[in-house]
């Protein structure tokens, strides 16, 4: 017979205002197996925990039930307390009488009855609990960072500086990401390249960091501490050992027909290219779709001019298998495609550009060498209209319902840069709301208005009518109710940010979830912002949601700290709530092996003595290190030969019975 102790928390008034604690205490006394009960104002406090510990010792409790807040909140707290008192922590159960009871019900009588019922279920389950001992697994002391933008670079540097090996995988030929494309950064207007390039170089020089550029993660298996990853290194067509980055091939390549990705299509690049001069690694790639050699078999100019013989047309994709203890996802964001916003003429008129294109147009290293001119006729604009929220805060099919967060600030920045370069050029900003929550942000935006004379108009643009060499912008000032028409020379659209198109595939590969907008979901929106629900996998940067550079870098360091927390351990404990097979009952049908998401169940042969005879039988076997405890197998198993520790068939049936009493 088990000796159950029940502890009922008031949670100040959070529980006690809706649940009559006295009634619960009285009811608990009559529950089968309960030998002790106690209520207290804050059971999670040290005093409260001591009540639990003392009672376990004093009353020889063999099972403990705490009726309090959600187990997702304090289960581990109370388990630790139980352990400290010498009780196996898995002999403790939580009854959730706060989130699932006092906070959602108003009727005190009904809430009290429900609290009793939930506690009774927890008692019934606890009686059937078994002591569980977590297993241990080793930790591979190496981290994988997926994505080489500022988030990935910062994470890699932080982990490497802590002394652990880091592999940084970047899909494009160079690390640097979106930040490398930016001209200046808000709210300080310091040059983006000036602050990013040193970090890129640090990463490439760091002896603990290996950069796999032009590479992709193809497969991820395993679990925290022991991820097994396949990295695909795409064929660069260049021998990275031999290439010195002299750049002769880039200049001599005759196929300069591709639009430069880095320059947002505002200029052309050669078939053999490095995305930008400060690329890391400074080794070009051959874009095989553009390259004449690959398309027709003729040409080969780059190979002829290369002084070191680094060009290798025969190079093939290579696959690399590597083990990691932790993974950090920093895959970044994209801008939405504006094709469906025909009223803004983005696809039809060259002088309607995106904010990112504006960055390139004002950048000294950009396609116009920093001379801000209209793409159509290379003339200096006299009136520029900026439109914010193009696709952001847009519930319709063509937009994104969220705020893209960075546009208000970069639009202010753009308008200031414009007015700075051309004081005689007028700047108009159409906005729905201006959001400047950030250190120095509000002051920055006000400077645009007050010192730089940027005209801010609360309202939107209905349509742009290209008329002659002007863009007739039909807008509204919603505050005054004036309908406006502006003859602009150029229009800059603050297009919404979005998750990378492949994010959900990456998510599936890593078994981390994505939200409705395909941004990766953090484990808790407030308290676990860089963790995912998958232990050992962390998030940083705009792949988790729109973010500016300061936030991204902060998150990157946070994710690095979390990863270091794993890497610094030599052993990790397992969740002991895993499946186990009763071999005497298992028929060996192995249906469980077919559905197990972790391939944690295999078959094995056992010898059994039946009626004096040895019988060799096939049965299922669970690898406790791989099993994550979903319990799916237990349902495929008709006779119940496979059961889940901590959530056994008997335990759940007992809960059902208790709840229904």
């Amino acid at each position, binding site marked *: 017979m088990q000796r159950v102790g029940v502890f009922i928390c008031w949670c100040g008034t959070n529980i006690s205002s809706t649940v009559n604690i006295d009634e619960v205490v009285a009811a608990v006394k009559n529950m089968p197996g309960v030998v002790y009960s106690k209520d207290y104002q804050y059971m999670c406090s040290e005093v409260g925990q001591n009540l639990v510990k003392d009672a376990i010792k004093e009353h020889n409790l063999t099972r403990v039930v705490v009726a309090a807040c959600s187990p997702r909140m304090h289960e581990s707290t109370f388990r630790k307390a139980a352990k400290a008192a010498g009780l196996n922590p898995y002999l403790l159960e939580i009854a959730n009488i706060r989130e699932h009871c006092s906070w959602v019900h108003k009727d005190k009588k009904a809430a009290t009855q429900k609290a009793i019922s939930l506690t009774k279920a927890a008692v019934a389950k606890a009686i059937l609990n078994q002591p569980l001992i977590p297993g241990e697994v080793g930790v591979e002391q190496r981290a994988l960072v997926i994505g080489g933008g500022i988030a990935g670079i910062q994470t890699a540097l932080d982990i490497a500086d802590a002394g652990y090996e880091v592999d940084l995988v970047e899909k494009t030929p160079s690390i640097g990401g979106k930040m490398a494309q930016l001209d200046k950064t808000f709210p300080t207007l310091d040059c983006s390249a000036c602050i990013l390039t040193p970090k890129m170089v640090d990463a490439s020089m760091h002896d603990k960091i290996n950069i796999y550029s032009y590479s992709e993660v193809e497969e991820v298996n395993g679990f925290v501490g022991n991820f097994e990853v396949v990295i695909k290194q795409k064929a660069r067509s260049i021998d990275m050992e031999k290439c010195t980055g002299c750049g002769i091939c880039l200049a001599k390549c005759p196929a300069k027909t591709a639009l430069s990705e880095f320059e947002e299509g505002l200029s052309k690049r050669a078939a053999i290219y490095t995305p930008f001069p400060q690329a890391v690694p400074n080794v070009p790639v051959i874009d095989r779709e553009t390259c004449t050699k690959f398309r027709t078999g003729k040409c080969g100019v780059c190979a002829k001019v290369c002084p070191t013989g680094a060009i290798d047309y025969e190079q093939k994709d290579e696959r690399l298998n590597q083990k990691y203890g932790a993974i950090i996802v920093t895959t970044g964001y994209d801008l939405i495609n504006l094709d469906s916003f025909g009223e803004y003429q983005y696809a039809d008129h060259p002088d309607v550009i995106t904010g990112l294109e504006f960055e390139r147009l004002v950048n000294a290293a950009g396609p116009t060498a920093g001379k801000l001119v209209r793409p159509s006729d290379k003339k200096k604009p006299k009136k520029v209209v900026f439109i914010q929220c193009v696709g952001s805060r847009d519930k319709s099919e063509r937009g994104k319902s969220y705020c893209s967060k960075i546009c208000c600030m970069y639009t202010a920045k753009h308008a200031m840069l414009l007015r700075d370069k051309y004081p005689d050029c007028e700047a108009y900003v159409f906005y729905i709301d201006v959001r400047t929550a950030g250190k120095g942000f509000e002051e920055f935006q006000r400077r645009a208005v007050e010192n730089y004379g940027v005209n801010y108009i609360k309202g939107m643009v209905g349509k742009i009518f290209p008329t002659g060499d002007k863009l007739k912008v039909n807008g509204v000032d919603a505050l005054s109710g004036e309908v406006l028409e502006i003859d602009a020379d150029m229009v800059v659209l603050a297009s919404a940010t979005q998750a990378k198109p492949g994010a959900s595939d990456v998510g599936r590969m890593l078994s981390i979830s994505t939200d409705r907008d395909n941004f990766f979901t953090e484990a808790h929106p407030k308290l676990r912002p860089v963790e995912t629900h998958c232990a050992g996998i962390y998030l940083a940067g705009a792949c988790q949601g729109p973010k500016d550079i300061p936030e991204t870098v902060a998150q990157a360091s946070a994710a690095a700290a979390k990863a270091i927390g794993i890497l610094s351990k030599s052993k990790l404990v397992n969740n002991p709530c895993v499946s186990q097979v009763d071999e005497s009952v298992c028929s060996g049908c192995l249906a469980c092996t077919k559905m197990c998401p972790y391939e944690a169940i295999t078959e094995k042969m056992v010898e059994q003595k039946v009626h004096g005879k040895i019988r060799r039988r096939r049965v299922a076997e669970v690898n406790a290190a791989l099993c994550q405890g979903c319990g799916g197998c237990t*349902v495929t198993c008709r006779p119940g030969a496979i059961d889940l520790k901590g959530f056994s068939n008997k335990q759940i049936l007992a809960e059902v019975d208790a709840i229904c009493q």
Partner: protein
Amino acid sequence: MSVIANNAAVKNAQAFEPLIVAFCCNWCSYAGADLAGTSRLNYPANIKIIRVPCSCRVNANFVLRAFQRGADGVIIAGCHPGDCHYMTGNYYTRRRFSLLKNLLAYVGIEEARFKVDWISASEGNKFADVMNGVLEKVHKLGPNRKLRDSRWRR
């Protein structure tokens, strides 16, 4: 489904206090229920939640047992397909209980008494809505006698 509508239903059925057992997966729906609590949303106390690691842990036995023991409705809630914490668990849930739901309807259990839905950790509102929705329908149906063990006293 509004609380107001639900209160009306309560008035109509007066003495009938349904019992609804909800199996919620730990990672999404149980967390969604927690969020409903944190957001102080309202749903009636008739709904009682049993935590399971994943909706794929729910055995058909459990559902039938709840009905045997006097539940007037049973709910299984898990992560949205594609978002399962265990990668693919709820895809199996979807198949298993699509069939069981049809089977229960086939032997004459009113469809509204058994509900499977996907509720993510961020859908506290949906959690309350789903619970209120089932309760409202069960209210209209009245107490469940089918499958109920005549010896069991609630």
